[in-house]
């Protein structure tokens, strides 16, 4: 009995280890590259940098575009989250608890919208934003990201709000709440974990998104981190060390967020699956 269990654990560890190294190997390679002195970049051995150097990190942080891009990314992701909340929370409340005509249709349309691949609407959005005169602005990137963030937020929040029992809404109305009061005093406190995970996932999506950000921006003024890193290659040679260092730096915030809130995010992702 014990031997069987031991074998099981061994297999489990083996499989998990394989999967983990498959997922993490590229990132590890990136870290190693970022720490290698320029001279060793094209050499193997040594596998590990000897001695490790911070020169690429210093170069990246010192580069004029990088900090601006980091700031832009932060602005874009934060604004996308705020916009998704500002519009998504009331919309989800209405869809979850008010007698909205054509509710099923609206939800289906939202799902439908979010199923289009980004590449299919990046062209029309590009033309639209030129017409509106907002190409190459942070606003354009935020709006484009909202195309995906909004349906996701509304779907997830609707199922969170639906899990709050009807009687609580009715009790709050008897106690003297308006709909906005119900939102503030009952829904938001109770849907806190849901809001948190939706906010984090939208933030990370927006932080990582490349295609829209690449198409809709044209200058360092509005470029986000993924775009800035992709445009790193210099005129004469490709600075692999700097690219790796920038990528590692860009990944850090999302990794830290995920580590801090992983439990909540998992519960948020499965919330819609279990009920509603």
């Amino acid at each position, binding site marked *: 009995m014990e031997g069987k269990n031991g074998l099981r654990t061994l297999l489990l560890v083996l499989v998990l280890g394989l999967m983990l190294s498959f997922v993490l190997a590229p990132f590890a390679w990136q870290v190693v590259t970022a720490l290698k002195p320029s001279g060793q970049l094209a050499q193997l051995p040594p596998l590990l940098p000897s001695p490790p150097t911070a020169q690429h990190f210093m170069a990246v942080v010192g580069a004029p575009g990088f900090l601006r891009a980091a700031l832009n990314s932060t602005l874009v992701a934060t604004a996308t989250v705020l916009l998704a909340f500002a519009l998504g929370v009331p919309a989800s409340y209405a869809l979850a608890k008010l007698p909205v005509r054509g509710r099923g249709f609206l939800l289906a349309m939202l799902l439908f919208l979010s199923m289009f691949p980004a590449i299919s609407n990046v062209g029309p959005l590009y033309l639209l934003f030129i017409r509106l005169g907002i190409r190459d602005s942070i606003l354009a990137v935020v709006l484009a990201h909202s195309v995906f963030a909004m349906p996701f937020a509304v779907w997830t929040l609707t199922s969170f709000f639906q899990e709050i*029992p009807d009687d609580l809404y*009715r*009790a709050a109305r008897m*106690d003297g709440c308006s709909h906005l009061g119900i939102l503030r005093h009952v829904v938001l406190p109770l849907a806190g974990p849901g809001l948190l995970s939706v906010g984090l996932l939208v933030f990370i999506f927006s932080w990582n998104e490349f295609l829209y950000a690449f198409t809709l921006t044209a200058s360092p003024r509005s470029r986000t981190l993924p775009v800035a890193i992709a445009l790193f290659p210099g005129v004469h040679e490709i600075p692999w060390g700097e690219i790796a260092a920038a990528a590692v730096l860009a990944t850090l915030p999302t990794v830290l967020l995920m580590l801090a809130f992983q439990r909540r995010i998992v519960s948020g992702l499965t919330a819609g699956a279990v009920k509603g």
Partner: protein
Amino acid sequence: MDLVLENLVKRFGERIALEIPKLTIHRGEFFTLVGPSGCGKSTTLNLIAGLEEVSDGTLRLGERVLNELPPHRRDIAFVFQSYALYPHRTVFGNLAFPLELGGAPLDEIRRRVAETAELLGLTALLEKRPRQLSGGERQRVALGRAMVRQPQLFLFDEPLSNLDAPLQTQMRRELRRLHRQLGTTFVYVTHDQEEALSMSDRVAVMQAGRIRQCGTPREVYEQPVNIFVATFFGSPPMNLLPANLERDAEGAWARVGAWRLPARICGEDRKTDAVTLGIRPEHLRLSREPAADAWPLQVTLCEPHGALIHLELEGDGIHLTAAERGQAGYALGEKVWVQPVREWVHVFDQRTGERIGGGET
């Protein structure tokens, strides 16, 4: 102040879910709406509360017309089946919430919450959260949140159905005591006929969106207006026997097979002679001695219920349930002579189900 419902109609789309021509609930009354699920009793409660809109008709509390008032301006409190306590607030926070929204000053909130908690025995629990409380305690917090605003009217939507049986009995008594103590009107919704009979001053029996009968528990139990009301109350339910009306020089008789019973029919001559006799199980007299106008039936099932024993009796195509005190000790398969108590026999029109008379008194 009386609560008056006049020509009240609730439609969902084209379907009329509720129609009440006139209902007056008196001040200080414990009034119960009872009926099977889907009969419109909860809808009635929601209309009174203002949680759903009236399609037609008037709702008045004293002189005030309630129709257009939002729920919290009606001076009405609601106790929900699920208690509907705010999980993120303490017991104090739950009790204080309606007062906070009403803009009461903090010291008044404290005083009134303390008073209410004292009355309901919640003082020691004020700092706890709902999930740390037992079912009975949650029920009391829900009551407290309703009481703290000192409303003119309490609405209860099946408040006891989430509790287990012993606690239910206890809470029934507590609610009755509270009702006496507060002297406020209670409107209570339940599907449980026993609850309705044991707690209420008056009962309205509802079916398919209509009130079928309104009266004291005794009235609806002893003088049901139709077969629905007659069979809704009582456990085991009333026995129903198809019979024929016959008339001779002595008067009217209800005939079942070879057996007949004097019947007193109210009103004019009926078109139909097909009637249904209703006899409650406790109104059947059983005997081992043969009697002239008694049925010889066989005991096919004995079901002891403590003080009473329920007997299934069959013979001659007739099937009856009787409730007897256990002492006689009838055994399975035994032959017994069965006779109804005449004054407790009900006669219903077989076609309409309306009560048209009773056995001779």
